[in-house]
């Protein structure tokens, strides 16, 4: 995963509440058994004039050339609610989004963002939308600033922050604890043998 320290970009204002993962990437756009090839389907229902089509809907913000290379997305309350599909994070990431700013997130979506190198920032997006020019998001300082020198701070739990800053894969980190995990299981199997199916008895 690409480490994320500092991003400077203009922000796409898509401040709607309850943007569900179906809106982020409709089921019908998840055509392959792969994490890739999803960016075209990002926000497909809003982005194109018809279902399954590819003619841009002119008044949808993603189609505004001003936001063509934006890496920051501003959203409303309860961002990423609905289905747990990680395709939503994959599609955003492939499209080039590295930071999503919303007043609140669905927890599964939020976790999926972190795991895919996208920084979810819990913050009211309106003041950021009103600021002109690019924003600089600094994850080390947990701070957002604009060209006018205005700043906004945010918080993020340590685990997510480290993963994003270092671009770490959580599986590798956990696998370092394998011995501890297996000894925990061995111990646990004594008090809850019914959990441990092993090769044993399916009657």
């Amino acid at each position, binding site marked *: 995963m690409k480490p994320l320290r500092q991003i400077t970009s203009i922000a796409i204002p898509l401040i709607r509440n309850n943007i569900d993962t179906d809106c982020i990437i409709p089921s019908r756009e998840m055509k392959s058994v792969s994490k890739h090839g999803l960016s075209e389907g990002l926000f497909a229902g809003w982005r194109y004039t018809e279902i399954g089509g590819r003619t841009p809907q002119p008044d949808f913000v993603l189609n505004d050339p001003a936001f063509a290379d934006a890496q920051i997305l501003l959203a409303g309350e*309860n961002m990423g609610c609905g289905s747990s599909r990680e395709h939503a994070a994959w599609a955003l990431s492939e499209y080039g989004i590295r930071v999503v700013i919303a007043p609140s997130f669905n927890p*599964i979506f939020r976790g999926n963002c972190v*795991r895919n190198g996208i920084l979810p920032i819990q913050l009211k997006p309106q003041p950021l939308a009103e600021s002109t020019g690019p924003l600089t998001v600094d994850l080390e300082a947990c701070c957002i600033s604009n060209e006018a020198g205005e700043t906004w701070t945010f918080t993020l*739990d340590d685990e997510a922050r480290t993963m994003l800053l270092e671009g770490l894969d959580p599986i590798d980190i956990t696998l370092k604890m394998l011995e501890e995990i297996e000894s925990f299981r061995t111990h646990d199997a004594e008090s*809850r043998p019914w959990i441990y199916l092993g090769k044993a008895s399916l009657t």
Partner: protein
Amino acid sequence: MTQKSAIEKIWESHRIAPLGESNDLLLIDRILLHERTGGVAMQSLEDSGRVIRHPSHVFVTMDHVVDTIPGRSDTTQMPTGKDFITVTRDTALRAGVTLFDLGDPRQGIGHVISPEMAIVLPGATLVCPDSHTCTQGAFGALAWGIGSSEGEHALATSTLRVQRPRIMRITIEGEPGVGVTAKDIALHIVSELSSAGAKGFAIEYAGPVIRAMSMESRMTLCNMATELSAFTAFIAPDETTFEFLKDRAYAPKGEEWVRAVNEWRKIKSDPEAIYDEDIVINATDIAPTISWGTSPQQSCPINKRIPLFNEVSHRDTQESYQRALTYMGLTPGGRLSGLRIDAAFIGSCTNSRLPDLRRAAAILKGRRVAKGVNAICVPGSSAVKAAAEAEGLDLIFKAAGFEWRESGCSMCFFAGGESFGPKQRVVSSTNRNFESRQGPQTRTHIASPETVAASAISGCITDPRRLGART
């Protein structure tokens, strides 16, 4: 001794190590996968050169992509569906996990079959890359939905790095009226608390109404917790739970069963346990409930008018309120009851178990679906289907004019294959009424199976009590 909630107790008993301020490394007892996201997870794991740590704890079903029309095969109406099915099957077979494939009598929707086989057990942790995994918390397990990468993590390590949720108790008191089911209670709660009302919380459902509920009703209630953005839902196990699980395929047997039940009886919250939120809902006042908008929180009693904006402005913005009504083709203050429908759907992990089908059949018996209404019933599992057929429910559904399908998620969601069509008004026993959830521009009203059955008969949204719903 500090007083703890049952959720905290299970959490702590699975904590291998704390990870910083609010995260823990938790042991995962059961992993459930389906062909929509499971194949991706298993393949990506393979591609990264990793292996599934404990394949005997991993179960895979085919539910999301498979067709539900009789005579189905790997070829699906969803374009490319076959890839999902074959990749899932091939990776599952290579990994040596347990697969419930097409044609297997154990196949069905994950959240229906896992309890049927006692894959989920009280006190266990279970994860699945599916947001409705909270359904299985009804068994006194910690069961929650995860993303695919987390799925890979769980497969590779038998653990997850998880943030400790806050805990909310929702106590349901009173006496639900005639025709008021767990689904109505769930919709009522979402409309009261809002779609984000339990964000980050694990909910413990408690109180006399829960204790009196069957396991199937408890599952329906817990199923909708994700519509509150909850981390999961949980119900402490009791005799009803044990009775349900006894003798099922993966349940402990003989002396081990006795020992397990003794342990499971201890899984309850201490009387003085402190909750981050403590809410009481009175079920006596709840009417059969149905959604009018495009989010489950946009629901109201079936016999009432669609709320005006000022009645819901505490949880809806003017824009989302208006957007929902326009999408649904409705007007503020309009009537729901009597609204003409095009289709009726009974199915999904919310409401497709045997008692759901029995209650719907009781309404359908001796009646005919109104002309022009496309009515479909999809049993939640192959086992539910077989059991329903053994008692003749299929005949009642078919005689009434319902299609009787093979089990799966079917038109609970639109995956690019089968759908209800633009502007078609559907009354559905499913859990999500999002825009285009059941097909491009399809207008979904979610409600209980009774309400779906009654509406199918009348050809318009109908209070099931008018057609003799009893439970």
